[in-house]
């Protein structure tokens, strides 16, 4: 029996929550993350933000003030609005890609590790082959391939939000907030579907170790099915590494989005994401430091919070961790 269930009859989750609550860094991180995500998702709906793409050239490079909380950029656009809208894209992309890649990776790795033998060997050789493919090139090809489909998707979604007799101007305005999401999300779902290799390796190794333990034998002797044994008894014991991996993947996907933006595959100007806001800010830091400061601040805060939270979750969820 695992240590957790042996000592107290608490469930894995309540025990983990208990331990997480006592980890101050993780708790603060959780709060910071919640606030950032909440702001990015909800603030644009309240309607008091400036239009993130509206330019006011005479008001360029303003310092932070009551009208522009984070100042304005080199085209007179409100940096606060751009950071919020950019965060929407970065966070959406980070979460979705990670979700897809971890889901596939966990299932694949768990099955591979559990069945072992020849099937396992074949599955892992497939992973080897996929590892050998040049990732960036595949992503670029993929992006080009799905471009017509995402364009159609954009038109459809824009159609839902506009009436048939709407003016071109109002359609364009609706399009401006839908388009960056509908063009990016499919691409990053596809990227997630390509980047589950490492997580599958990790999970496989964990499952192999856990599967040999007595409680699995016990479960099997009770006549439980393979599916139940794998997903109810083995996988919870591998959660630690999976969660650490997940929290590290989210910021790296956000960075990857910035790379793709630079290659013309990610967010296209004038739309913003944290990645391309930081890129632009770095270029212009001599003339406008706020353009670098605020996006970097938010990005780093998210990155640190995710790391601390991941760390805390790993400690909290590790069934073998010392009880105090």
């Amino acid at each position, binding site marked *: 029996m695992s240590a957790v269930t042996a000592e107290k009859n608490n469930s894995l989750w309540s025990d983990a929550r208990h331990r997480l609550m006592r980890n101050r860094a993780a708790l603060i991180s959780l709060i910071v993350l919640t606030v950032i995500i909440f702001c990015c998702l909800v603030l644009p709906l309240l309607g008091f933000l400036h239009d993130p*793409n*509206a*330019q006011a*050239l*005479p008001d*360029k*490079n303003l310092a932070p003030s009551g009208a522009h909380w984070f100042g304005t950029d*080199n*085209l*007179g656009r409100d940096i606060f609005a751009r950071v919020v809208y950019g965060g929407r894209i970065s966070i959406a992309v980070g979460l979705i*890609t990670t979700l897809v*890649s971890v889901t596939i990776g966990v299932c694949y790795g768990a099955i591979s590790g559990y069945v072992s033998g020849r099937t396992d060997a074949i599955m892992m050789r497939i992973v080897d082959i996929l590892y050998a493919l*040049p*990732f*960036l090139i595949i992503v670029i090809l993929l992006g080009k391939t799905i471009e017509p489909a995402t*364009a159609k998707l954009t038109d459809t979604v824009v159609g839902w939000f506009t009436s048939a007799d709407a*003016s*071109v*101007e109002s359609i*364009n305005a609706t*399009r401006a907030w839908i388009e960056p999401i509908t063009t990016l999300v499919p691409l990053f779902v596809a*990227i997630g579907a390509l*980047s*589950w*290799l*490492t*997580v599958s390796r990790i999970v496989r190794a964990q499952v192999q170790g856990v599967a040999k333990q007595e409680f699995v034998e016990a479960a099997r002797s009770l006549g439980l099915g393979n599916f139940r044994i794998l997903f109810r008894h083995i996988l919870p014991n591998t959660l630690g590494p999976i969660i650490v991996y997940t929290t*590290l*993947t989210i*910021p*790296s*996907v956000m*960075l*990857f989005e*910035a*790379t793709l933006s*630079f*290659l*013309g595959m990610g967010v*296209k*100007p*004038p739309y913003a994401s944290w990645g391309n806001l930081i*890129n*632009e800010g*770095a*270029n*212009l830091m*001599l*003339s406008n430091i706020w353009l670098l400061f605020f996006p970097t601040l938010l990005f780093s805060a998210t*990155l640190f919070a995710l*790391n601390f939270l991941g760390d805390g979750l790993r400690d909290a969820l590790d069934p073998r961790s010392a009880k105090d």
Partner: protein
Amino acid sequence: MQARHPYKASQNFSTGKNSTAILAPSHKNPAVMLRRLIILLLPALGFLVSCQKETQVERANREGIFLTGNSAEPKSLDLQQVTGVPEGKIITSLFEGLVADDPENDDGTPPGAATSWEHNDDLTEWTFHLQPEGRWSDGVPVTADDFVFAYNRLLHPDFAGPYAEMLYFLKNAEEFNKGKITDFSQVGVKAIDDHTLFVKLREPVPFLPSLTRHYTWFPVPKHVILKFGKMQDRFTDWSVLPNMVGNGPFKLKTWRFHDVIEVERNTYYWDAKNVGLNGIRFFPIENPFTETRAFLSGQLHNIYTLPSDLIPAAKKEYPQYLHQEPYVGTVFVRLNTTRKGLDNEKVRNALSLALDRESICKYIMEGYTPTTSFVPKMGAYEPEPVLSFNPEKARALLAEAGYPDGKGFPRFSVLISKPDAKASIEAMQAMWRKHLNILVDIQIKDWGSFVTAQQNLDFDIAVGGWIGDYLDPTTFLNLWTKGNGNNNTGWSDPAYEALLSEAALTADAAKRLEILKRAELMVMKAQPIIPVSWYSRNYLLRPEVKGWHPLLLDNHPWKSIRLEK
């Protein structure tokens, strides 16, 4: 020549340095994060160290070596295979034309490979007398035959020189280049003896001496080229180390790809005693923002382009480095007139009328002048001011063209190749959306695929820039003739070309300019290109650099530059 500023390829360091870490998000671990943090902090660390140590510039001052930001890795150093400004900067240190550049005066014609020249009364026949002491950097004498060989090579149809049009001033050169005649002896250039070159022109060209300062008119070392292949072979090994031989004040010393090109004194140069530098290092830093940072941290003596966004800050904090001068060049937007939508003259004019060039120049392209036509004012030539900002008229034209209120207008992409062009294009993107309800995308490509896409007409709209090669409007107007390697709009008009030929045959200077003005009006009416602004040069130069004077064409002769210790 093809302007690299401000619209040029850039491989930002964020792709270069981080790419391996970013390639596969699945490889992420804390160590990589930490490494990235360290990479980010390194410049700051480097700055701290540099405060105590002698900077690269200070050491170079001692050694008499000029460090220049050259903004791109040259495509090649074969001077007959390139069209860009960065290549030109290196080539003018390695080679010299018949006439040299004057350090203080754009119209000055000091002797170069030729000591003197004379012409007949109607300016169509010229004789150049070469330096008796002129030698290649391997000691072989420079002869008139090297010039004839060079022009033969550049004009040869098999060689497909991308800048051959520059030699069309020679009689029959165009015919030879287009394969209409195959006998090169009919082309108007002849070696009378080893040191006398005779040139017969298609038309009177009063500015021929200043034209021969351009690298398309330079000689090439016949004896070296023939060692590595036939005359018309492209991309042979003659122009790389250790084979490269030139007749300029410097010779090639090192060439590390995407790192540095270094040249050193050429002892065989006829005027070697008047060369002020011991060497030059050309650094191909592609991102102008990075280049600016390199300059400010004491790694470079000059950069040719200060991004407009940084001018106000530079004015305030680095006035001792900042230079702002006029420049003969135009920033414009190329339209692919073979695309549906853009094939309509009304659409093209509507796009042009919707641009508020005043605002763009005032707030973004600092120091640039809003265009009222295409060719910048030069000498006696001043084009009719025809471009204006008129959103109502733009909307009316767009409606006439079948897109009332922007309805149904195709979604086009604007191609750019350099991050400092992004701001002005984003402004134009916003203006088209605001005034015409037209949405366009912005697409960034690296310099190579940016140029290729345009040459293959595989683009919708692309940003362009053109810098005059000599002080005459034809350096701009010849671009839009059919088959010109830099036209890339799909537009041409026989009537336009007829006007240009008519101007070429007109001896009376004033009348000639009138005809050219009419030709320019034709381009402005058809608008295959939308001029945006006239260049001004904003660059950074260290004060210890002497012999560097304001020049319209920006051709600072390397041999006159000195470093004060």
